[in-house]
Structures are given as structure tokens and as C-alpha cells.
């Protein structure tokens, strides 16, 4: 057997099934949240330190771009959260069969997006 095999990986030609799509989004949102940790900790520190700090954090998120960014972060968190619950269910052998797995993938997308829209409306 040859020691190394060629691998064909054209990302533009790969058509992931829905459970694959939500899975890679789980990964991407997790990495994004990791990268944002220092910023989120800084916001937490500022908002808890003093009345002025709290007002400053509030002022950041009054700007439309910052609001959009925050809503994006919330979507990432909620998607990661819902996918986490889905994986915990899979660990308990719930929803392992393909039709249920496809349905729960759809459910994760729908629930996290709907919750993001609700929070977005509340924030705006």
C-alpha cells in the first residue's frame, strides 16, 4: 500500500448535507468566540468597574455597526449553544437516525436565527 494517498479537496465543489453545514458553523462560531474573548472580557470589566465605564460600553453599542457586530456575536453564541444541546442529545442516542438528525439540524438553524432576530429587535 502506498504510504501517502492523494486527497481531492475542492472546497467549492463539496456539497455538505445540512447536518454537515451546521457542524462546520459550530466550529466556525466557536473559533470566532474564542478570538473575541479578550474584547468580551474587556467589555465586562469596563461595564462592572464604574458608572462611567458602564455608560461607555452602552455608548459603543448605540452605534449601528457595533449593534450589528453584537447581533452577529449573539447569533454565533446561540448557534453554538443550540448545536451543543443537539450534540448532548446525540450523546444520549436521541436523534441519531438520519431523518431526525436532519430535522434537528434544521431546528438548530431555525431556533438560533429566530432567537437572534428577537434579541436584535429588542436591542435596536
Amino acid at each position, binding site marked *: 500500500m502506498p504510504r*501517502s*494517498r*492523494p*486527497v481531492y479537496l475542492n472546497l467549492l465543489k463539496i456539497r455538505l448535507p445540512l447536518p454537515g453545514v451546521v457542524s462546520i458553523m459550530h*466550529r466556525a462560531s*466557536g*473559533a470566532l*468566540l*474564542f478570538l473575541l*474573548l*479578550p474584547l468580551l*472580557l474587556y467589555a*465586562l*470589566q469596563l*461595564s*462592572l*468597574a464604574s*458608572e462611567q465605564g*458602564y*455608560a461607555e460600553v452602552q455608548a459603543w453599542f448605540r452605534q449601528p455597526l457595533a449593534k450589528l457586530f453584537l447581533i452577529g456575536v449573539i447569533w454565533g453564541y446561540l448557534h453554538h*449553544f443550540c448545536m*451543543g*444541546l443537539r450534540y*448532548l442529545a446525540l*450523546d444520549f442516542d436521541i436523534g441519531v437516525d438520519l431523518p431526525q438528525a436532519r430535522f434537528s439540524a434544521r431546528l438548530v438553524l431555525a431556533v438560533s436565527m429566530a432567537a437572534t432576530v428577537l434579541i436584535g429587535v429588542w436591542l435596536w
Partner: protein
Amino acid sequence: MVKRIVSGAHYGLKDWLIQRVSAVVMALYTVFLTGFFLTQPLTFASWQGLFHSLPLRLFSLLFLFSVFIHAWVGMRDIFMDYVHPTVIRLALHVAVILALLAYAAWAVQILWSVQ
């Protein structure tokens, strides 16, 4: 090319468990915090007041520590999948570990300096 990455034995089950236990802690804290946002008016006083008592400080710290350890397992898995040159992968692992340790110390400082 498909190559096996040599790694230590027996860490898989432990990390599998850590990932799930930390996820449950974070989920509980998220539900709690959502309850706070839904029932309390959000002002500086109510926000700061949330972190006054020791049990809530500890719960918040437990949440943040869960985030950090969860992030470590997740980032390590991502690097193992996509970063194959050993030197670069190990450097990234070390960078993530050091960053998360610093965040953990920072988290203690943030929560325990609430007046």
C-alpha cells in the same frame, strides 16, 4: 496527504467529558443570565448588583473557567485537524494555553474588584 498525528494516549475520554461538563455549566449560566435580562431592568446598579454576592461571583467564575477550558479543547481539535506542521501546531497550542491562563487570572480580577 493523510498522515497520523502522534499524540499521547488516554486524553480522549477525559477531554470528551470536560467538553460536555463545561458545556452544561455554561448552558445553566446562560439560562440564569437570560432570566435576569428578562425579569430585571438593565441598569448599572442592577448589573453590578448581580455580581455582589459570593455565590454569584463563584457561579460567574465557574462559567468563565468553563468557557476557557471548553475553548482549549475546541481550539486544540481545530488545530489538530487543520494545522499539520508539528512546530506550528505546538506553537499555536502553547499560545492558546497561555492566553487562556491569562484570561483566567483576568476573570478573577474582574469579578473580585466589583465594589
